């Protein structure tokens, strides 16, 4: 959480950081007390608002209503499952303190119950261009529509998850926060926006809202365990988690693309032996990568640093060599506005300050796009900071999530995943995807990769093994469906299955071709339709195949089929969504509105699930 900046506050860098850490952890009463305390010392009351300040939060005496309800509703909007996991964890903590908690996905929440809800906590992530996750869409639209009720009696707070490298960072959380205020709601606590490394700020928000709720019901216990609990929100069955990854031995690492392809897709098989980790089809694998050694060397050399210098590796006080820090601990391939704001204070060149001027917003956006820390180092030299000062402004190197492409039951103690190597040239230099190229170039069988399991409750096979499944996964989007089908094979599931796959060239880019052929032969996979876009004069994609089979596809839906879409969000998922609407409209003889409602219902019934990125 980086909310107070040098540029938006009168504080110095280190002051802002202290405040950023402290403020989210304050309860309402602590904040009120602090406001008074500061006022008493002759200054104006500090604006505790971190983003989009709201007086309401400070002015509203949180503990005003003695008859306050002990019922809390936690709604989450989650694409990859992070928000859902946090919601579950928060629910557990609240229950321990005697609250009655109702946790649900936003799209499963009956909106007519909203008017009667007193305590509402929202945990929601943001996707793409500031969009809500799939299971938050309908709730989001409802709240922003004319049908949304006035909510004067509502006490709420929002936790947003996002990534500062996106322009619309935590936009969905911000939208909810603002909208609930507009509808008359009162903040239980300030919204907290989390960057990729969300554990600490999320734990701070937990403490804040639990404190506020306790004050409302006059039950002033302090949730001391909150931080600890939030940190261990992942998979409790194993000692290994996002914060304590398991070092899994690489059993296999091979290229799935044939010679002559312009793509490289790696299939990795890891051993989970001894980890206690398990997973279900649809779950993801978090992999902690290493930065490209050449980039690290170039950065150190551009800055004139000493690779062996001891620097902090994290905020917990651990130290290590600069080289080690840049290889394994800090993100150096993505520029964000907050990072540039902090870097501006370390640069002796005025150009960076100028780039951050409000009127140069577009120029800043253009600059950030496709550039990395080496560009920054070169473009805004000379620097007046030490290596230690510099790394202190960097984000922690985040893990990358990949759809798991194997079934645990079919391959016990193994996990397979699928990564397409990202390599491209930009701004005159070869660029490499951090994790994908790490896996493609520097990971050999026998090596160990730090990994964790990220469960994804929103991408799951139907509970009923007889239910038909329709899987749409072009490119690496096909990965989870290998897991689905392996699982169904082990289960001996009777349900029909239909896979739509596409890529560029049949000969070289048909990922897992021989696996599908075998599954077709054995009847595990009932139907496979493929689209190879560069083999024919007109480009054909999966959505074209979907449209070609509209009657049959609609018939499957009528038989209760579940639809799964995995892969590229921007183009594919959108085009597939449109194609599905067309199928329902045409084959189902419905109006556009009815088709949209049909698909919405499928989504609410968890029969239309997406894992898109």
């Amino acid at each position, binding site marked *: 959480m980086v909310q107070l900046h040098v540029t938006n506050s009168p504080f110095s860098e280190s002051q802002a950081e202290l405040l950023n850490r402290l403020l989210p952890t304050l309860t309402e009463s602590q904040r009120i007390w602090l406001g008074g305390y500061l006022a008493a010392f002759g200054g104006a009351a500090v604006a505790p608002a971190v983003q989009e300040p709201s007086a309401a939060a400070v002015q509203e005496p949180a503990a005003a209503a003695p008859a306050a309800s002990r019922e809390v509703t936690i709604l989450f909007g989650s694409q990859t499952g992070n928000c859902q996991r946090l919601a579950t964890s928060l629910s557990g903590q609240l229950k321990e303190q005697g609250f009655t908690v109702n946790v649900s996905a936003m799209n499963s929440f009956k909106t007519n119950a909203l008017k009667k809800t007193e305590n509402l906590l929202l945990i929601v992530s943001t996707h793409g261009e500031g969009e809500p996750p799939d299971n938050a869409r309908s709730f989001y639209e409802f709240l922003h529509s004319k049908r949304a009720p006035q909510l004067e009696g509502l006490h709420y707070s929002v936790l947003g998850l996002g990534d500062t490298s996106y322009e619309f960072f935590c936009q969905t959380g911000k939208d909810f926060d603002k909208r609930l205020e507009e509808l008359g709601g009162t903040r239980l606590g300030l919204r907290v926006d989390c960057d990729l490394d969300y554990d600490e700020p999320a734990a701070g928000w937990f403490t804040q809202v639990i404190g506020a709720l306790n004050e409302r019901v006059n039950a002033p216990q302090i949730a001391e365990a909150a931080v600890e609990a939030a940190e261990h929100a992942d998979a409790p069955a194993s000692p290994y988690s996002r914060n304590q990854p398991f070092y899994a031995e690489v059993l296999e690492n*091979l290229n*799935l693309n*044939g010679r002559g392809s312009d793509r490289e897709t790696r299939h990795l098989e890891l051993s989970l032996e001894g980890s206690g980790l398990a997973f279900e089809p649809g779950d993801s694998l978090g992999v902690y990568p290493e930065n490209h050694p050449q980039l690290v060397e170039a950065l150190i050399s551009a800055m004139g640093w000493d690779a062996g210098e001891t620097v902090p590796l994290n905020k917990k006080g651990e130290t290590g060599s600069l080289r080690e820090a840049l290889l394994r601990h800090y993100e150096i391939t993505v520029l964000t506005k907050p990072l540039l704001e902090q870097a501006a204070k370390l640069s002796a060149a005025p150009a960076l300050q100028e780039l951050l001027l409000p009127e140069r917003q577009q120029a800043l956006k253009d600059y950030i796009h496709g550039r990395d820390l080496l560009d920054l180092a070169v473009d805004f030299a000379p620097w007046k900071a030490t290596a230690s000062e510099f790394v202190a402004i960097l984000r922690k190197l985040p893990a990358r999530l990949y759809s798991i492409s194997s079934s645990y039951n079919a391959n016990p103690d193994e996990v397979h995943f699928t990564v397409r190597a990202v390599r491209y040239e930009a701004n005159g230099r070869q660029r490499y995807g951090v994790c994908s190229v790490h896996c493609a170039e520097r990971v050999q069988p026998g090596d160990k990769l730090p990994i964790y399991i990220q469960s994804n409750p929103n991408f799951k096979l139907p509970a009923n093994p007889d239910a038909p499944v329709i899987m749409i996964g072009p490119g690496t989007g096909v990965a989870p469906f290998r897991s689905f089908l392996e699982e169904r094979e082990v289960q001996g599931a009777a349900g029909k299955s239909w896979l739509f796959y596409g890529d560029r060239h049949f000969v070289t880019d048909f990922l*897992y071709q*021989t696996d599908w052929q075998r599954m077709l032969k054995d009847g595990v996979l009932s139907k496979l*339709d493929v689209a190879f876009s560069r083999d024919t004069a007109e480009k054909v994609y999966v959505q074209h195949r979907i449209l070609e089979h509209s009657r049959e596809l609609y018939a499957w839906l009528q038989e209760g089929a579940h639809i799964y879409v995995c892969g590229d969000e921007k183009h594919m998922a959108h085009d597939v969504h449109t194609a599905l609407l067309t199928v329902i409209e045409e084959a189902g003889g419905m109006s556009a509105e009815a088709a949209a409602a049909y698909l919405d219902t499928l989504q609410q019934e968890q029969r239309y699930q997406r894992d898109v990125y």
Partner: protein
Amino acid sequence: MANHDPAVKPIGGPPSDVEHIKIESNYLRGALEETLRNPITGGLPEDDNRLLKFHGSYMQDDRDLRLERERSKLEPAYQFMLRVVAPGGVASAAQWLVLDELAHKYGNGTLRLTTRQAFQMHGVLKWNLKQTIKTINDTLMTTLAACGDVNRNVMSGPNPYQSELHAEVNEWARRLSDHLAPRTPAYHEIWLDGEKVVDSLKGVEVEPIYGPVYLPRKFKIGLAVPPSNDVDVFSQDLGFIAIVEDGKLAGFNVTAGGGMGMTHGDTNTYPQLGRLIGFCRPEQVIDVAEKTVTIQRDYGNRSVRKNARFKYTIDRHGIEWFKAELHDRLGWQLEEARGYHFDHNGDRYGWVKGYDGKWNLTLYIQSGRIQDTDDYQLMTGLREIAKIHTGEFRLTPNQNVIIAGITSAKKRKIAELAGRYGLTDGAHLSALRRSAMSCVALPTCGLAMAEAERYLPHLLDKLEPVIQEAGLSEKEIVIRMTGCPNGCARPALGEISFIGKAPGRYNLYMGAGFTGDRLNKLYKENIDEREILETLTPIIHHYAKERLGGEHFGDFVIRSGYVNATTSGLNFHA
């Protein structure tokens, strides 16, 4: 030849798998329409691949990539070889241009001239087969019966010295080809969007010559024009040797029962030479061929495919039985064979003026492969010539090409183009290299056990210094290499031959007749390059020193006792 010769297996077992596929195929349809469309695999099931052969194509894969692709969870790099029928190896300049374009558009950018004067295109993907075949048909060529258990491309000597005769003999090759072509509408249905013919009329046979099961095995016909035996007439199931009397085509001597293929380690299989059985008039050629084909249809071994060729049918029953059966079916008798003389089976390179006053340019094509490389723009050069050429292209049985029928007006321009692209008549190459021939083998041929086309040039690089040191640079020695014993480059007729046994290992055969009139014999088994050179070097020097005037290498190694003469396929293994 007696019926009870131990080298010949009796027939009478159950029909082979391929016989079942044929009979169930409904005249070569099978499930091809459906399996060609299946988008999940670039290949075909084996049954349909067998049938596809009759349509002129079969499935191959890049064997260099097999293991790599298997690891990558990809099926083999399936691709299709497409063979274009060209009776006597004749193609117009316009046809040449179409094939050149198709090779680039759908194939691997090369063309291969086969040892049977046909064109081959490699690397065609399943999805492109139909369009490729359609385009070939649009240019009045066909792929029908280029492979499969039917009469194959009919060979005919393209001898440019005797152009008038060539044209006449070639016309018979074309008529034989047409007459023996399958009649099934399946080809039109599958490739040319022809209307489905639901059922043949009751009682009318769709295939009047072949019947519903076609032949037990492939069948090959070649027509030679002496003194050149470039078609290796004795290697053909049915051969015709043109007899010229008073400057006119009097007719043909007929040979029967030749064939090259065998199986390593199975002495019941062997190469064999055709035997001279008589003489027929030109207009009787079709009748002789048709009746011969029906005899093989009725008597060939349909139980064991490797004993199904016509040569085994003849050796099992005896040549006299065959003659009697043929005369019976013809209703007339062949005349006594007439005198003829062959003096070589290689090509004569360079510019030659024909009887009609037109020019012919024979170009040396290494292993028949038409392609562009960094330092040799052969394919481009031939394409540029085809754009202005008003005559024909003739493919030779030695995989070379003759730009034939060049008018005096075009001669200068074509010579200039040939010069610009460095198209070679092979004059700067050793006679050994000019007389060398190889099959495709790896990586596309599924049968290959060792390299051939890709390796022979390298082996020749190492043999040439030996030849040169021995002073034999201008001495033609027929040298052939195949990747397996099936015989595509007619290896049993090489004075020196290499037949692949395993990667890098070959059986060495020697002692065939220079004019293709005697089979060779195994000299060393399973040897690598070092052993090849160690073996051949002293023999070549010996030959250089002690050969008699005009004595060919194949004769010398027999006279010197290196190998015994093979007088019949039946003692090939003896």
